[in-house]
């Protein structure tokens, strides 16, 4: 029988509930956030065993230093042309976000989500992957499509749910699906894409293909069961997949502590599964590129999965439905110690003597024009709510490959009712 110690003398327990450092109105001071110098992290061989570099899950791989120079083993040594192309894609992403955010405010669509401050995470990854590597993104990686040179007008058509929307108005704005750019249909349900990416990668491996998969989720979403099942499968079958955790510090109003950041890093999750883990400066496009390239190399050589935590900051609201001033200090974004990814890459190019502020300003202007022109083009196909852009009966299509009788019957009911009521009736 267990011992019968009296518990009268035990001290009462207490519950720890995380609390972010700063709330609305607070002065922001990030000085106790440890930021290791650029170039300090070692770069293991791409066939090193994951348990030989566990420390990388607790550090921060950084390439761009305070002096705007690329340093250390992780420097991907990209040509100035490639750097400029990357800078441009990031700036275009930001310009696109600006315009579409405004379009939502103007009532042209129902919803929008920006990736401001996190552009490097998606753009630099797209540059480091092959064009047919399969991406399973969350809703904040529009940069992937832009970096893969996808049509802005097409993206906007989707956002406007208009006549030309490739998704036929069926999906919430920004929930793109672009098969020809190896970009998987985005889900509204957090983290579901994670095991799907692992399954895709397993299938590619099982078929002796050469393509790998990459997936992204926010730090908040790592709490979902899907994250765990994905990591478990990836570890067990050594799936050729890159698991990206975008730690932008916030999940709507909850700071990263509610996903576990007080106890350890998100890269440490990789250690838990015995898979390769990297924690990197997500606002450093070169670090993102280098980490992705290294992880891709591991995947392509059957070394299995890599989990990359991108340490970054969500500089704007969660979505157009959100007002971050309600729950966090307005100063955080400006004070963020890892800076802005676009500015940092720009400054690097300038330091290399390959760019200047004038060219940057000209490019920004040009991109704003590009985006504006695209928006005008897309708006020709209509915007949300101004007319029903899809024939009514499309609602019943693509539920199944072939429409079963009950949907055909419901379609007929709808058309009959619409007709009886004198409404416009589709095709």
């Amino acid at each position, binding site marked *: 029988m267990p011992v019968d110690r009296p518990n009268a003398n035990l001290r009462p327990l207490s519950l720890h*509930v995380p609390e972010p450092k700063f709330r609305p109105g607070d002065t922001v001071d990030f000085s106790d956030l440890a930021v290791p110098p650029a170039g300090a992290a070692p770069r293991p061989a791409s066939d090193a065993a994951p348990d030989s570099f566990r420390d990388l899950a607790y550090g921060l791989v950084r390439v761009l230093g305070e002096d705007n120079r690329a340093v250390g083993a992780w420097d991907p040594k990209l040509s100035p042309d490639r750097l400029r192309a990357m800078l441009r894609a990031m700036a275009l992403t930001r310009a696109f976000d600006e315009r579409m955010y405004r379009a939502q405010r103007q009532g042209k669509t129902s919803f929008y989500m920006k990736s401001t401050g996190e552009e490097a995470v998606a753009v630099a990854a797209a540059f480091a992957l092959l064009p047919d590597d399969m991406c399973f993104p969350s809703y904040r990686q529009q940069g992937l499509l832009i970096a893969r040179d996808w049509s802005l007008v097409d993206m906007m058509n989707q956002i406007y749910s208009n006549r030309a929307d490739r998704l036929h*108005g069926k999906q919430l704005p920004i929930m793109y699906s672009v098969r020809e750019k190896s970009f998987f249909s985005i889900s509204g349900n957090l983290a579901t894409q994670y095991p799907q990416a692992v399954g895709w990668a397993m299938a590619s491996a099982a078929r002796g293909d050469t393509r790998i998969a990459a997936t992204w989720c926010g730090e908040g979403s790592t709490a979902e069961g899907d994250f765990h099942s994905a990591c478990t499968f990836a570890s067990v079958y050594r799936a050729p997949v890159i698991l990206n955790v975008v730690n932008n510090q916030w999940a709507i*109003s909850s700071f990263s502590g*509610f996903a576990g950041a007080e106890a350890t890093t998100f890269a440490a999750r990789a250690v838990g599964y015995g898979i390769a883990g990297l924690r990197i400066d997500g606002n450093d496009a070169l670090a993102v590129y280098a980490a992705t390239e290294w992880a891709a190399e591991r995947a392509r050589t059957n070394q299995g999965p890599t989990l990359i935590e991108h340490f970054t900051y969500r500089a704007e609201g969660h979505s157009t439905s959100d007002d971050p001033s309600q729950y966090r200090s307005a100063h955080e974004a400006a004070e963020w110690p890892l800076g802005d990814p676009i500015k940092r890459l720009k400054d690097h190019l300038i330091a290399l003597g390959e760019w200047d502020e004038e060219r940057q300003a000209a490019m920004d202007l040009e991109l704003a024009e590009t985006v504006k022109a695209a928006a005008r083009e897309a708006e020709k196909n209509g915007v*949300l709510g101004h007319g029903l852009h899809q024939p*009514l009966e499309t*609602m019943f299509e693509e539920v199944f490959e072939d429409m079963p009788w*009950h949907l055909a019957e419901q379609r007929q009911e709808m058309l*009959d009712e619409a007709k*009886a009521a004198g409404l416009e009736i589709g095709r």
Partner: protein
Amino acid sequence: MTRMNMIQAINSAMEVMMARDPAVVVLGEDVGYFGGVFRATAGLQKKFGKTRVFDTPITECGIIGVAIGMGAYGLRPVPEIQFADYIYPALDQLASEAARLRYRSAGEFTAPITIRSPFGGGIFGGQTHSQSPEGIFTHVSGIKTVIPSNPYDAKGLLIAAIEDNDPTLFFEPKRIYNGPFDGHYDHPVQPWAKHDGSEVPEEYYRIPLGTAKVVRAGEAVTILAYGTMIHVVSGVVAASGVDAEIIDLRTLIPLDIDTITASVEKTGRCMIVHEATRTSGFGAELAAQVQERCFHSLEAPIERVTGYDTPYPHSLEWAYFPGPVRIGEALKKILKD
């Protein structure tokens, strides 16, 4: 008495219960400092502290699992699932655990938890912010399902749900959080203040689970509905001049069958309206029961006006939503039959 909208009434129910019973705790994504993405828990953390009102990690199965454990300890948790569309990851904890715990332990352990979740469409939320999954839960024995249609009921029912010792799903029709909605999406929104149901006592009161409410008495046809649809149906009935009896179910399980059968026996006709997809929706169960019990009174087939058997389409939201046109046409049809 004061005027409240749905959100305020729901907030007030939680506040009243937290003040009365120290075992009541509120947890969920963004419910703490921020007060919930729909502000339903606003002010509660400030008033009751972080150990009684707190944010959670984003894992619905975890939220319900943890709430069950808290319930077993002796607390009375009120978890929020941010959108009903996101309740599926929690289904196992709800159906296999919360709903079964009393039974499988022969009453040794129970799950006195109330799961609040906004549901339904009409806000351009697309397929993952518009669903009405209540039908699924009505098939799970051991769980109650409650859906209010106005602030007064919302508060009284939520208090009853929190006090109930069984797990209860409390689905909130988010389209009418700020005002009743008659389905004419192109008309300006009416605020709750102009509606009877917004007179809400500030103090404690309860509406027993399992009691429906006859919203409008009538002789020509019985209309069964709940949530947002009560207002859409009422609008159609008012406009059409049909002498319909409208019953607000308020709780789906347990169902107030007596009120339903008494009405159908009187009118001889029955129409059911819900936003959820048709096949195997709760309307099927209602139709099955009404024909079982009122067979010889029925003069026409029971009609179902529901969401179509498709996901909720973003741009065709108003074609999907069972609005005044569809309800009006169905009403004509059932009266003709």
